[in-house]
């Protein structure tokens, strides 16, 4: 009896050893070939939200799973789960190519060299600038993880995360245009366009489609090379013909754009007037030499008169000229043009006070 038990027990031990070995041996190829089950076992509990978003996604239905994009656990961890556009581009080749033609693809490079970015402490860079400018590396800036839903990405709200607020109030300008208000009610792009209708027609991912100017209002290409008059006209023609003519007649459309061009020039004129006042102070030695105005200007540590100019060039000017191209009327007028004029008054008064103080000091 005892003998039998011992033999059985020895067999069991042997069996246990063998089966453990089997599992161990099997698990080596398992890690190497990592299966979706491995990820899900933990992640459907630990990150339920993203798991559920993926389950409901088109990716899940087509068999695109964690490993397809993240390769394996080790690699995913090292990159903090980031997946770069090139990986998405393996399947979505056309989209990647179009994306690379547009300015989203240089967003990160654009801030890296900017003096304002360099002047900020690291935590602020991370919390603010980089959150938007990382669009260069993240398709999921717009198609958010893990649903990657085209429906979400096409909504104006998807653009709003970055394109809102003082420096680029695209969302506010659009929302206050007739385009935006009609779309807000109907949610129907046949009735009125949303952001993607004009800037990404037919689903192009070149978001610079039909746009002649950079953020500073200069007619340049994505690498900063000036565009010839002919190329500018060609780009505008693309926008007008592919987009506006869906609803508007030719003469009206061209008139609107030309009007916006003129508004842009007017705003530039006011900036020029303000700059002249500041440059004069610089020449008189009231302000130190080497005042930087406009594009590379900092919003910190300057004189008050430069700070007034900062608001003019970076906020009010943008409201005015971009507001005109987005057909926002009341909003763009009062936050833009009216404020530009009021700032000019302030700059002239400040210049007078600075001169007066300077005279008294002598």
């Amino acid at each position, binding site marked *: 009896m005892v003998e039998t038990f011992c033999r059985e027990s020895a067999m069991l031990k042997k069996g246990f050893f063998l089966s453990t070995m089997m599992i161990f041996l099997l698990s080596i190829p398992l890690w190497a070939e990592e299966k979706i089950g491995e990820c899900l076992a933990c992640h459907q509990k630990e990150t339920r939200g993203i798991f559920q978003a993926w389950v409901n996604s088109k990716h899940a239905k087509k068999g695109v799973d964690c490993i397809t994009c993240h390769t394996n656990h080790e690699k995913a961890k090292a990159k903090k789960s980031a997946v770069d556009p090139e990986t998405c581009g393996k399947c979505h080749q056309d989209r990647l190519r179009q994306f690379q033609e547009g300015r989203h693809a240089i967003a990160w490079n654009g801030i890296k060299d900017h003096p304002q970015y360099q002047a900020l402490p690291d935590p602020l860079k991370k919390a603010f600038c980089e959150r938007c400018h990382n669009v260069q590396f993240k398709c999921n800036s717009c198609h958010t993880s893990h649903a990657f839903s085209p429906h979400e990405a096409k909504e104006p709200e998807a653009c709003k995360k970055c394109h809102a607020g003082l420096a680029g109030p695209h969302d506010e300008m659009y929302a206050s245009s007739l385009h935006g208000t*009609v779309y807000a009610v109907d949610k129907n792009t046949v009735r009125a366009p949303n952001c993607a209708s004009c800037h990404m027609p037919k689903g192009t991912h070149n978001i610079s489609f039909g746009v002649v100017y950079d953020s500073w209002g200069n007619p340049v290409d994505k690498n900063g090379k000036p565009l010839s008059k002919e190329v500018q006209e060609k780009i505008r023609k693309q926008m007008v013909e592919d987009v506006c003519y869906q609803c508007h007649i030719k003469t009206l459309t061209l008139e609107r754009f030309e009007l916006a061009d003129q508004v842009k020039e007017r705003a530039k004129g006011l900036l020029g007037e303000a700059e002249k006042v500041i440059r004069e102070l610089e020449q008189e030695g009231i302000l130190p030499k080497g005042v930087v105005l406009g594009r590379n200007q900092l919003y910190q540590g300057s004189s008050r008169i430069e700070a007034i100019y900062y608001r003019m060039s970076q906020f009010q000017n943008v409201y005015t000229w971009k507001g005109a191209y987005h057909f926002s009327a009341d909003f763009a007028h009062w936050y833009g043009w009216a404020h530009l004029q009021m700032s000019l008054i302030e700059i002239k008064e400040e210049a007078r006070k600075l001169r007066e103080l300077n005279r008294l000091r002598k």
Partner: protein
Amino acid sequence: MKVSFVFVCLIILTLSLTMCATVQKNEYDEIDVGFCISCHQERTPGLFQSWVESKHAKKGVNCVTCHIDHQAAFEQKSMVFPDKCGECHKKEFEEFQKGRHSLGWDRMRIHGEYLGIPPEIRTAFCERCHIVQKRCNSCHTSHSFSLKEARDPDSCASCHLGPDHPHKEMYETSLHGIVYKLTQDPERAPRCVTCHMPNGTHNSSFGIARGPVGTKSEVVDLKQAPISKEEEERRREEMIRVCTGCHSRRFAREHLENADQVKEAGFELQDKGKAAIQEIEEEGLLYPSLAERMPHPTEGRTLVLADPQLYIGTSYIERLFFTMFKFHSIRVWKSGYHFSPAYTHGFGWTEMQLDLIDIKEEAEKLRQMIQKEKR
């Protein structure tokens, strides 16, 4: 022989010209919707599709009904004026003419602020909203002219927002606006049209007993004449009848009267700012002085404080007052009537008090500068 040949030629030429003219005329006379659609369903498919889905299309109201013919449409850049819409929508057109929307364009054209700015800016900005006088499709946008759209607060929000009159923002931060946003149910909470266009009236000045924008003057009628106390009371009663859809009469009256008092308090504060600047002007300390600057387009070389004050080319202290009256004072009193505490207090009353500090400080600086100069 020669003479008769020329004569025959002339006759042929005259006949053919007449025929051409007749053919062309007939073509436009008998223009039918098929003629328009053959091009426009391809050239402007969005606009065409909107019309197809509209009530107009179902009832047989087509391009020609409103635009008459291609030539006429082309000449007026496809605009259709309210009197044309009024041929069918008689009641709405008559009501529309009783409200201030029907003065939108005319009032703008004679306003000092409008006259003081460059033509491009006028066209791109001012005119886009003030054209409501000539365009039913400011609210019922082309070509679906949908009631659902026009009744939505978003429809009002393309003009009624921003620093000069944040109606949209005030409404959205009121309980009315918040509950409507959550429920989308006008039975639960009112939207713009519930109070301002009850029973579908197109008189957008319905029930408005205070105004006009930014001045302390009495409420005026469409001819800009002050209205009587009785008329004022009648309008207030009109509005209270809307409120009693949900609120008790006493509650509604109390809240509106409280708003009247808020309005008065706001204007008193504004007057303090005004007085400080008038003193500066009397002391000859404005820079640029009234003599040094372009005269006001409608008021000439006088100190204009509050409507129709300009935001261009004035002194800095006047510009401070501009912000106070045009942006902040209006929030105080209009938010009082729209029941938005955030806008009445935070963005309105607080900002006005801060403006007053700025104005007084600036006045003091100007005086100091001159005193030092004299020494």
